[in-house]
């Protein structure tokens, strides 16, 4: 914080400096004091609480609990990580979590792209802003409410089976399964994909498509060679959200997933709430952090952050 220079602090008027001998004048003459004053509280919050928490999380992962008293013993070991790597169950859970995150991300990208295309390149400006609101509203309509809505829809006597019955199909027993989780996750995070893809598509000048057409490219060729590559950073940006949000979830697997549909988050949740084994929960929680760090590095390569 050495080189603080006030943007507005050019040449202080001499009169102001002599007249105001109080705090205001001092702050005016020393812009870095103002900077420190403004930054100290938020910085303290993040360093002393949030970053400290992340550090404690990391450190706790290397501790263990006393199996009899369930008190945390501050003894360093890699046992928690060893358990994670060696246990087939935990490996399967980690793979399921990552696999589902990937499936949801691909689904949302495929569903969002034509939608965003229509918003950005076909719709009139009035329709466009209406669609924008329509995408944002569900995002703010309570996460739990939307998961619960699907629970009711998938129920035996719910709307899905009712609709299937209406059109003469047998009951679709997809409640409490990985299919149910896939649909619900794709549903909940879809707006997070639509918005960045739309933003990326909207930024592509029409003249690019015209130039491509002038050079003899058909519609599909232009889409494949011009528009889609230019919109890719937007898709990657959206995928950061859909992937990360699915990766860290445990509520949807708990509510709509069946038996044996645990995610990393569920193990963490149970380790804290039921087994009171915070060190093990902390160790497993580092897995999504590492995965997300790798994902972000990759996303950066594709220019996803310039697209946000």
């Amino acid at each position, binding site marked *: *914080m*050495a*080189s*603080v220079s006030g*943007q*507005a602090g050019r040449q202080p008027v001499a009169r102001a400096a002599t007249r105001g001998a109080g705090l205001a004048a001092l702050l005016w003459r020393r812009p*870095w004091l*103002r*900077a420190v004053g*403004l*930054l100290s509280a*938020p910085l303290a*919050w*993040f360093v002393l*609480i*949030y970053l*400290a*928490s992340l550090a*404690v*999380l990391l450190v706790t992962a290397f501790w263990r609990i006393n199996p009899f008293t369930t008190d945390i013993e501050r003894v360093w070991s890699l046992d928690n990580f060893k358990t994670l790597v060696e246990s087939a169950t935990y490996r399967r859970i980690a793979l399921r979590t990552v696999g589902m995150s990937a499936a949801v991300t691909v689904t949302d990208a495929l*569903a969002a792209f*034509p*939608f965003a*295309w229509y918003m950005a*390149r076909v719709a009139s400006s009035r329709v466009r802003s209406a669609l924008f609101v329509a995408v944002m*509203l*569900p995002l*703010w*309509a*309570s*996460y*739990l*409410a939307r998961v*619960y*809505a699907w629970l*009711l829809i998938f*129920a035996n006597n719910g*709307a899905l089976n009712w609709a299937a019955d209406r059109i003469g199909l047998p009951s679709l027993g997809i409640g409490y399964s990985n299919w149910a989780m896939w649909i619900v996750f794709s549903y909940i995070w*879809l707006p997070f994909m639509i918005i960045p893809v739309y933003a990326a598509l909207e930024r592509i000048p029409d003249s690019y498509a015209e130039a*491509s057409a002038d050079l003899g490219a058909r*519609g599909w060729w*232009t*889409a494949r060679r011009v528009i889609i590559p230019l919109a890719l950073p937007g898709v990657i940006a959206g995928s*950061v959200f859909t992937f990360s949000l699915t*990766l*860290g*979830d*445990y509520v949807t697997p708990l*509510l709509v997933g069946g038996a044996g549909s645990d995610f*990393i*988050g569920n193990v*963490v949740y149970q380790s*804290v709430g039921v087994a009171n084994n*915070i060190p093990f*929960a*902390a160790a497993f*929680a580092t897995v*999504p*952090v590492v995965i*997300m760090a790798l994902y972000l590095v990759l996303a950066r390569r594709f220019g996803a952050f310039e697209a946000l």
Partner: protein
Amino acid sequence: MEGRATRVALRLWVALVLAFLFVPIVIIVLYAFNPSNIQSWPIPGLSLKWFALTWRNPEIRAALLLSVKAGLAATAIAMLLGSAAAFAVHRFRFFGREVVSFVVVLPLALPGIITGMALNAFFAFNGLNLSLWTIVIGHATFCIVIVYNNVLARLRRTAPSLVEASMDLGASGWQTFRYVTLPVISTALVSGGLLAFALSFDEVIVTTFTAGAQNTLPLWIFGAIRLGQQLPEVNVVVLVIIALTIVPVVIAQRLTRESGLIRRG
């Protein structure tokens, strides 16, 4: 470049996606008026009877009160710290300026269990009992970025000449802040606060790790759904929550839109 057939196909796709987005919400809203205590489709009629019963339920009232308290406290902290950080980043060039933007967004960018788990380990490490205040700390941590982004975006769109003009006309630093800067950012600040409240009011994942034995409204819903109990009340509460979170968001959007005066270009 889009041909006629492509346009029709796109339109059809948009309609399908919209149906996918809104049918569940319509269904959940209708279930709140279900007179039966069995949740089946189609609902046998429309009734308001569960609204009164829900309102009289002491557990739900306690949860609502806790949610409102936590939301208000977290929002107040987020507004103070978020706008302070936004001012600092906007006005000053200092070492590590980019790091601030990165750290502030971390609690939202990292998966929710990480933030929740980290805070839980932190509270356990320091021997803090889980209470209203641990909930508030968790919520404030991820709400700060909302206010920060809103205020920073407004400051960036505001012409710096406004502040300079005020100073040239002899206003003190405080007067400039009170009569120029504050009115300029006020709607952004309020809309950031409303969004932060909406986010806090709806949060489950971090809250399960920071609430202990108490229930916020989303935690109560989560528990009831898991056990499959009190579902008629859940339907009503869910409808109320949807309404309570959508209203602040709509107001917030209105507030940020009406800022044509101070736009730079």
